[in-house]
């Protein structure tokens, strides 16, 4: 179960606070996955008590967008900690789907990759199994193919430790890279933090999802949670 709260001493009108939190959650807590399961209790609350001497912020206030953006970035940090914990997780993985025709499709694809048990198992085993990533993209429940053109898609692993080459191309314009540098792939997959970059090449919208690997420990923890 995900529970959380964010509290602030700013005075914020209740309706503006709800708008802010909903927007923040949609780009943070609603973009994480450890195991693909949705709880009966997931809740994120926000309280604004107005202890700071400032005019009340509503949707028309000049500061509204700035505060909304700050709350969103803050919420991302808090959400990412949940993924870093994961149950038995050894890797923190950013799935970045960019240049999609629309945000909704980018989100669906990012979520599908993030929830794939086989992708997550491969990440745990440090196996550069790009086929599973492409497979997940292919069965994503998109309403149509506006964002998905097989001839334009690019998939890469991105190193997060400043080593080079930073990007390891797995699929280039729809063509699998059969001569992939396995040594470099292993180096990137051995990192505790890494990124899977999917460039749809069909637009300009993007969505980041945060997930983790699936380890033996996950089964151990969840095999006797109730008893």
């Amino acid at each position, binding site marked *: 179960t995900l529970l959380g709260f964010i509290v602030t001493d700013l005075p914020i009108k209740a309706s503006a606070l709800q708008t802010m939190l909903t927007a923040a959650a949609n780009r943070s807590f609603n973009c*994480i996955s450890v195991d693909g399961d949705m709880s009966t209790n997931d809740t994120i609350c*926000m309280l604004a008590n107005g202890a700071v001497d400032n005019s009340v912020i509503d949707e028309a206030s000049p500061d509204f967008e700035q505060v909304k953006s700050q709350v969103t970035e803050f919420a991302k940090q808090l959400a990412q900690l949940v993924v870093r914990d994961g149950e038995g997780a050894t890797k923190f993985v950013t799935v970045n789907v960019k240049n999609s025709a629309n945000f909704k499709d980018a989100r669906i694809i990012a979520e599908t990759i993030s929830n794939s048990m086989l992708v997550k198992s491969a990440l745990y085993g440090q196996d550069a199994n790009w086929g599973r990533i492409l497979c997940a993209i292919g069965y994503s429940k998109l309403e149509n193919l506006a964002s998905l053109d097989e001839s334009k898609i690019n998939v890469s692993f991105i190193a997060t430790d400043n080593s080079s080459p930073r990007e390891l191309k797995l699929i280039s314009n729809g063509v699998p890279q059969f001569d992939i540098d396995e040594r470099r792939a292993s180096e990137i997959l051995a990192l*505790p933090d890494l990124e899977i970059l999917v460039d749809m090449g069909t637009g300009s919208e993007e969505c980041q999802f945060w997930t983790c690997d699936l380890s033996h420990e996950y089964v151990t923890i969840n095999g006797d949670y109730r008893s």
Partner: protein
Amino acid sequence: QKAAKTVDKYSLYVPKSGVFPKGFEVASLASGVKKNGNRDLGIILNTNKSRPSNAAAVFTTNRFKAAPVLVSRQVLDSGSGEGVNAIVVNSGCANAVTGELGMQDAQNVAGQVNTHIGKQNSTLVMSTGVIGQRLQMDKISKGINTLFDQKQFGSDFDSWLNLAKSICTTDTFPKLISSKFQLSNGTEYTLTGISKGAGMICPNMA
């Protein structure tokens, strides 16, 4: 793999200090619901009287919403998010799929905090833990009274960190972050966030 497993997440991700917003106090204790004796009950309280405190929330879209989800939503809906001064959280029992009795328990937990702060419809309630078991109301009720009667509320770093610990279940570390920000007119404000979760995580809240 072995190297990755031995990473000490607690020392990596748990802060040793923080900045906290004005006008909030928090408290927590071990009520006895958790079998291991760890903290399992926490309350966050608005103490600022200069303006009413406002609240917002997003909730699970699971069709089987737990009692605390339904009760908190009622509180927010009835007051349009205005006048919410407290959040009470328990861990160890989710109070989910517990029917009418579970609803009464959640309402009683919120009501008990409302009584202590002297305001009706002023408390949100959250629960996490095992699904399909009723709250141990005797322990939780006693715990709430202890926190208020013994004035265990504080605003220091340890109080906030202990609150973060009190909502954990299978978490390997408490999740607490805080930051100061500045508005365009130079006014400084603070955000503090606490979350919990390690498994059953793929929320889609609205």
